[in-house]
């Protein structure tokens, strides 16, 4: 049960942080989303994000900074085996599930539904 509680609290706090940025600056929601993906990649690069993933599970994997971190981790994993060239391959492999499912389901829903307004 505690894995749920940790995921709830860590994920929730990350959203609170994003909400504070939205409310206290002039940035729009789209800007905040971009900012947090970049922050995720930077935190990943500094070795800070992966420990959070291991501690909070979905609490750190579901929010968007996880995307930036995952791309970074994917690159570095590939670099270990393939060298510098992996900068061009590892990232999308790591993000494949998220991007492919978003395109697929996004396209499917757009094709099947009509906007409500």
């Amino acid at each position: 049960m505690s894995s749920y509680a940790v995921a709830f609290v860590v994920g929730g706090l990350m959203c609170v942080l994003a909400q504070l940025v939205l409310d206290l600056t002039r940035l729009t929601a789209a800007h905040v989303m971009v900012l947090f993906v970049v922050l995720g990649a930077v935190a990943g690069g500094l070795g800070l994000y992966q420990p959070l993933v291991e501690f909070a599970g979905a609490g750190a994997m579901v929010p968007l900074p996880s995307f930036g971190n995952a791309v970074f981790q994917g690159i570095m994993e590939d670099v270990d085996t393939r060298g510098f060239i992996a900068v061009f391959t590892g990232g999308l492999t790591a993000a494949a599930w998220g991007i492919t499912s978003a395109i697929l389901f996004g396209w499917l829903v757009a094709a099947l539904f009509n906007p409500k307004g």
Partner: protein
Amino acid sequence: MDGRGPVLAEGEAGADRRTARRTPQRAPRRLGKQTVIFSHPPAIVSAASVVGPMEGKGPLAEHFDVVTENVLMGEKSWERAEVRMMIEASELALKKAGLQHRQVDWILAGDLLNQITCTHMAARTLDIPALGQFSACATLAQGLAVAGMILDGGFGRWCLVGCCSHHDTAERQYRLPTEFASQRPPTAQWTVTGAGAFVVGAEGDGPVITHATLGRVVDMGLKDPYDMGSAMAPAAADTIWQHLADTHRRPEDYDLIVTGDLAHIGSAILVDLLKENGLDVGDRALDCGAMIYKQSGQDVHAGGSGCGCSATVVAGYIMNVLSRGNARRVLLVCTGSLHSVTTYQQGETIPCIAHAVVLEARRPGQEEDR
């Protein structure tokens, strides 16, 4: 602010009559800097309004002619629905006036979409020669002013003036898709889904348009498209101030001073801007954007906006107020925020404009008193 003009220091109190045209046969039809006075005030012989479901749940619901059940109105797109509202409002206004399409000389109408497409698609169906109007949400007053000039100038007998806007078409053009999960700030305004149409005649029964004051573009350096009321208030103040200076009138000469869509925040700013310049509008000031929705419970933040806001509120509520004798003389000041997605994204400030027309109730057959 600096006290000499409502916005900047350029307002001229005295009428600059050098520009006024004087023809020996006619009385001057220009007053001061920016005002025209109609020697034979054209009459608004009928008006009609069509609104969406949300406006139909607002405080003014009883004044609207048609409340649609659905924002799509059975059409294949929201843009089509907007066109349909414009056509329905126009047809209804013509029917109330007892006119056929071919009797109308010009349609003077506008909307918010790029290249004012809804207006021209409606004009295609109505088959009336069209002169598209655009000054964003100030379009209604621009249309009425131009109609007044055409009719008083003798260039026509009947004009149809109309405006439409649609929440969903405007949001996705100007801001974000409506299905996107984002919070709107408390200063944001809600684009009205609705269309208003007016049949204006060179002669006829109904409230008359006695003056029109065409505004300057005023830009006080605000950039936030989610805070249009604050950006537009100085333009409204400028036009009201200039109108009163040009006509040598006081706010007390009007029963109501109705602004277009400053909404709650912008209209509070306007009242204080005018007060700083020695004009106390008191409880004469009304705002269409502040009136059309309930202040709480409709989740519209600061209030309504859009071409359709002033058009439907004037066609519905204000025309009723005039015809029932609750007000005799109304200064209608429509305000427009003249930004586009491109200018906003390039970091430009928002240019704003306000146009004003004076509406006066007339009993049938009564001549103007000047």
